[in-house]
């Protein structure tokens, strides 16, 4: 089953690899992954959808939380959350279908970003399921080429972020010869 995980992590080199490493080490296939800075440039937020057996989902979250760079990992699969994705789609359609394609785009609230003799390039955002339908509809009009961004998720519950406070470092040492 597809699990959606939202992770708040430190924006440091290698942090992304650590997170994906936890998943690849266990052989889970990552369906999609997005990551970008938050309003705090030291932190990034990552959304991952990964194919995991139901009974292992809690384990995956615990393994993520173990990572030093990860501040918080949350399972958003069943939680109240908003998930949005973007699709860039190029469709080659014959002359007769051009108006129909534009109409479909309008129905899905998609924007045409490029128009040429061969067809259109269309940008759509929304729920991943809605985008699946959009792609299916467009496929019926001709050859398509698709680039998906992967889902970006945000929890609708406010979870208190538990950050660790600083601890004292070892003090100076007395040397006697």
């Amino acid at each position, binding site marked *: 089953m597809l699990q959606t995980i939202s992770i708040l992590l430190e924006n440091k080199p290698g942090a992304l690899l650590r997170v994906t490493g936890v998943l690849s080490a266990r052989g889970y296939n990552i369906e999609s992954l997005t990551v970008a800075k938050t309003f705090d440039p030291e932190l990034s937020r990552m959304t991952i959808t990964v194919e995991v057996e139901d009974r292992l989902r809690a384990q995956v979250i615990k393994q993520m939380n173990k990572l*030093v760079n990860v501040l918080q990992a949350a399972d958003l699969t069943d939680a109240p959350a908003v998930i949005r994705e973007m699709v860039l789609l190029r469709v080659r359609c014959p002359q007769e279908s051009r108006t129909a394609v534009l109409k479909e785009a309008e129905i899905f609230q998609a924007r045409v970003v490029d128009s040429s003799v061969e067809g259109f390039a269309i940008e759509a955002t929304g729920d991943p399921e809605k985008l699946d339908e959009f792609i299916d509809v467009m496929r019926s009009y001709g050859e398509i080429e698709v680039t998906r961004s992967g889902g970006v998720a945000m929890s609708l519950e406010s979870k208190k972020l538990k950050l660790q406070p600083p*601890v*004292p470092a070892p003090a100076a040492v007395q040397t*006697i010869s």
Partner: protein
Amino acid sequence: MAFFVFRTLNRHNLESGDYMQTAGNLQDAAKADQPGKLMTGAEMLLECLVREGVDCFFGYPGGVTLPFYDALYSHHIRHVLVRHEENACFAAEGYARATGRVGVCCATSGPGATNLVTGLVDAMMDSIPIVAITGQVTSKLIGSDAFQEADTFGITRPATKHNFMVKSVHELPRIVHEAFYIAKTGRPGPVLVDIPKDVFQARGHYEPVDSIHLPGYKVFTEGHTGQIRRAAQLIWEAERPFVYAGGGIIAAGAAPELRELVELVDMPAVCTLMALGGLSSSHRNFISMPGMHGSYAANMGLTECDLLIALGTRFDDRVTGQLQSFARHARVIHVDIDPAEVGKNRTPDIPIVGDVKKVLQRLIKALEELQPEFGAKKTDSRHAWWDQLRTWMNDHPYDRPRDENMIKPQHLMDEIDRLSNGQAIVTTDVGQHQMWAAQLIRFSEPRLWINSGGLGAMGFGLPAAIGAQFARPDKLVFSICGDGGFQMSIPELATIASHGLPIKIIVMNNGYLGMVRQWQTLFYNNRLSAVELDCFPDAEKLAGAYGFKGRTIDKPWELSSALEEAVKEAGPYLLNVKVSPDENVYPMVPAGGAISEMVLGPPQPVAVG
């Protein structure tokens, strides 16, 4: 020139994460401590190591670590030169396992760093605190396939609890202290710090680090009060309670609490391979080791108990066998510092995430509070349970065969046990000898038994003994190896000779890769493929080549005196003991089987009438 370096800050205060500065007024003699003093990265690293209380570390120099080794030349910290980087990490592990302190090893870039990987994975599997320092090529050459360049940061990422690449000399002190903090707190583990050559050489103003801030690194210590109370209630109500103690007991220093717990409730306890010595082997409540080669009573006890109290352990497949039948009638209390282990293999009825020492202290208090009311409820069932356990123990003790003309491996272990009397440090390599040593040698306290458990890395035993001897110069150290594992560590005989380490190297020599041979005999129709270890060197000549004593024996009547001679020898001693090659380790739980389905001995010949 002898230096004594005293740590004035109690290590435990650091682990409990309290904010108070516990160091008082310090007369700081170390010249580097004047704030803002200009020094090189290499000198800063040494200053940080001293602050962390490192008195001894193990390494092998190379091109990119030259600046570091140059600074080391005029520094008082002790560096032990090994003969292979893999052994630097194993030695650091031996040091860490023998003391509980962070073991430190150092290697150069490229092949030096990659040679550390086995040791790092071993420390990761057994949760041993290690800080590994590796050199890296100059920053501007990184990624250009420079000489002796390897992506150490990438290669060691899955092999470590955490790793760092130092980009500038200004962040070096902070990173080194963070590395030590991560290595020794929570569930301990290996941390690697990769330092490019130009960072070692760069000069900066050294500012002592006051505090360590890792917002995402959570350390759980306390344990939930409600859960602890519920656990205490269940313990008094259990008719067949059973304690399953793992490596976490050793890591937390919780041996006194474990003993208090088992005595308070008068419960049987097993110690896993990683926990031997956590409860004294001579304690009347100790039921030996469980699992694939554990004792009959231990495995039956685990199978038939009604309350399993798992302390600092991870339900590893070697212990549990087939999970569905493991402790099939029991409710489970699981205490561990790593939340990812609790519920990983077995969903506990009472999960308690915390430091097992602290949790046990609170659990014992809760038990004492409930004792007047509930303490005597199940006394009769408990007596019946002990009767059952003692029957199992008496009916199926460990096999201790003897032969007139050949030395049986079990006889060797019994003799070592006699000489150790629960006091010596024993390191083993991996294989049959490791299992027999675990079964038959007693340990009266923690940190005497040192072996590679989770990874099972051959070549571990001898370098680990080196680390342990440096850590505990006062102790008698036995390094028991098989003939296979010993031959993987021969280079370190030079290290032993160089420092005159009085390690007693006992090679249990059956001429085979014993454990693999055992599996081939039992499961592959005795097709012995690539397990014959011929051309073992003459021990007397080999030890003599390194300037110390060696001897080979193969007769049972020589065993006692040869071992006593080895122990009496002031310096190192190599004793090659030729043992019967046909012995198999029993009991044995076949892979994937239930631990109650043990094979107790060789198949008996059937008489055909």
